[in-house]
């Protein structure tokens, strides 16, 4: 029997609507008492001090690139898991664009098993919509859904599914299993050679522009197709004010759609590209300040369901290439929640409970997150984060847990940081240090 007592924290649990100071007692991975009396019966329990801190459900990331198998030079499941727990996550969804592509049960089960061996976070593998991300033949969705990985979320992330017939058939076929499809919203014809957001900044820098219409045209098509078929669509990394409006109208019309936004699109705009530092190169690109404002408003009003990192590790050498040759992508796991706390909560745009919801109940409404996202009530699995909302720290790319160091926030001072992370009653991060690898029972 294992006992864990989390003491003195402010319990912020959107699933139960709770915002109160309470102790939390966990036995064998399950919450057995919440409240002032929870400490009773805690003799011999392991203790985590949460005084002055928030106690939230463990965060869920719907959109993660862990690069294993195939891209271990930049990240693997062990380093990515360490980064995740340092950011307060207990579950992350590794994307399918690995090598080999996660388009068969063998690959998603490998990812699931590697995640369990590392034992720091639960992996919710994503499979591709089309074989080999080729955009033509569907993956065996039924078999993937019934595999050990129980895949209920499919994406060719990074490569837009441009063929409208294949997308429509994929939505129709997926509806048999009620799984979610997620398409990278980008009309590739409109973005041929594109390097950054098209606008006043790209025109000065002489970089080929990536028009917002390219995102919105594809998004509108997918919303129309999903509405017609009645299938579930998840919109990844929204970046434009126009895209927000499209999602808002689709939700009002009853389309089965959910949407996410990344921490970087919530906080950075395209003027960051000024020095041609390819760490700022990302797909979809950083947009303008008015887009940032629209995304923040949409996250607050629930048009956007979730913050998802699109954590995309790339090696230093890849990012030191000339801008046009450098790959797209930014790290996100270790900074996402502190960033939202610093820029959206402390500025009054989001109340704490709503901010937590966008990392917990929001993702849990998109797909089956298997015991993650709360509630933190008696009988529930003890997946939680203890977050210190007062501590000030400076992001240092040399000290991140990721193998890669392509964070766009290097040198930025943030307020708030994860102190402890707990997976089914076992601390995976204690006082900011990942617990050594322990196989999960």
């Amino acid at each position, binding site marked *: 029997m294992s006992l864990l007592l989390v003491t003195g924290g402010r319990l912020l649990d959107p699933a139960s609507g709770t915002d109160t100071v309470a102790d939390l007692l966990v036995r064998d991975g399950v919450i057995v008492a919440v409240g002032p009396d929870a400490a009773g019966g805690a003799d011999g329990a392991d203790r985590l001090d949460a005084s002055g801190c928030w106690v939230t459900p463990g965060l869920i990331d719907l959109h993660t690139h862990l690069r294993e198998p195939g891209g271990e030079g930049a990240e693997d499941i062990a380093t990515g898991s360490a980064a995740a727990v340092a950011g307060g996550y207990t579950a992350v969804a590794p994307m399918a664009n690995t090598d080999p592509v996660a388009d068969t049960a063998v690959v998603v089960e490998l990812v699931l098993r590697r995640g369990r061996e590392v034992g720091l976070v639960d992996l919710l593998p994503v499979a591709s919509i089309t074989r080999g991300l080729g955009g033509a033949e569907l993956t065996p969705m039924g078999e993937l859904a019934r595999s050990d990985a129980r895949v209920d979320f499919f994406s060719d992330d990074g490569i837009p599914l441009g063929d409208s017939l294949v997308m429509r058939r994929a939505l129709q076929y997926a509806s048999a299993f009620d799984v979610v499809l997620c398409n990278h919203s980008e009309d590739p014809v409109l973005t041929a050679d594109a390097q950054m957001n098209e606008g*006043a900044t790209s*025109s*000065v820098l002489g970089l080929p522009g990536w028009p917002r219409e390219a995102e919105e045209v594809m998004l509108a098509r997918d919303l129309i197709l999903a509405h017609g078929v009645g299938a579930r669509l998840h919109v990844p990394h929204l970046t434009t004010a126009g895209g927000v409006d499209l999602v808002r109208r689709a939700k009002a019309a009853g389309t089965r759609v959910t949407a996410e936004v990344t921490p970087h699109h919530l906080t950075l705009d395209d003027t960051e590209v000024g020095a*041609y530092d390819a760490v700022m190169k990302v797909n979809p690109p950083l947009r303008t300040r008015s887009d940032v404002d629209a995304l923040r408003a949409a996250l607050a009003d629930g048009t956007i369901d979730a913050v998802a990192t699109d954590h995309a590790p790339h090696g230093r050498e890849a990012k030191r290439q*000339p801008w046009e*040759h450098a790959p797209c992508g930014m790290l996100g796991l270790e900074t996402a929640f502190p960033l939202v706390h610093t820029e959206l909560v402390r500025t009054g745009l989001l109340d704490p409970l709503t901010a937590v919801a966008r990392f917990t109940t929001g993702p849990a409404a998109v797909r089956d997150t298997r015991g993650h996202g709360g509630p933190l009530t008696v009988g529930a699995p003890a997946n939680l984060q203890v977050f210190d909302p007062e501590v000030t720290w400076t992001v240092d790319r040399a000290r991140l847990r990721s193998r890669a160091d392509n964070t766009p926030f290097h040198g930025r001072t943030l307020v708030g940081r994860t102190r402890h992370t707990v997976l089914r009653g076992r601390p995976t991060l204690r006082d900011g240090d990942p617990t050594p690898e322990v196989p999960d029972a």
Partner: protein
Amino acid sequence: MTAPLTDLIAIRDLDRAQVDDLLDTARELLPIARRERASVPTLRGRIVCNLFLEDSTRTRLSFDLAAKRLSADVVDFTAQGTSVKKGESLLDTAETLMALGVDLIVLRTSSAGAPVQLAREVAVPVLNAGDGWHQHPTQALLDALTLLQHRDDLTGAKVTIVGDILHSRVARSEVELLRLLGADVTLVAPPTLLPDVSGWGVTVSADLDAVLPTTEVLYVLRVQRERLHRAFFPSTREYARVWGVDAARLRRLPGDALLMHPGPVNRGVELTSDAMADPRAVITEQVTNGIAVRMACLYRLLSAAPRPEVDA
């Protein structure tokens, strides 16, 4: 005192005093550039590397002559058709050049911003000889030198730039420098070839004939035929008729105006042969001035950089 020049990458990095200093220096060096005076030993013992990752015979020749007139040693690193051209190993190349002991790198590349990235990595000055659609600062400086040989001052001068603004590093450098020197700039372009210029401080027009009577300087940009394939404009014939400059159209331009082009000209597309023969055209002056301006840039960049201990 003029701030020393450590790199020359974009016009917007310069202030007015630095521009005036470069132009004054170029004027002093003009007799040498024109071969009216012998070359000078100013940069003897210095090694200038022309790192040209994109074809450009004319610009490379101009930089080559500029360095040699100042007695610098010139090494050419042309990398067409190799992996360097694709850009993957630009920084590896830079490391090699450092180890070889070059004192300055002249970089021509199709990658916008690559000179900015290179300058962050190397200790020697980087001189941008054109990077993608971004900047071509020596072109703008040589054009300013040419204009100031015909006008005392560019304050309020009405300059019209016509052509493919979107893909033009010349246009970006030109506008930034002309604005710094106080000129009023009007851009005339098909909307498909005009980027978002809301922050450029310029006027935009789609009617070339309407702006010509008040234009003091007409700057015609090169248009590349391959743009046809991406539906930027319908045909070279259509382009020539609507956006091109011929003798008939030049009759609308005031008698004391100037006609400029960065070269090479697509004759019959953006500019006809008879228009090039117009007495208001200063296109060949631009070429000669280019050597003097590049001499001035090399001289200023290398006089700001520490001189290695070399026994002459």
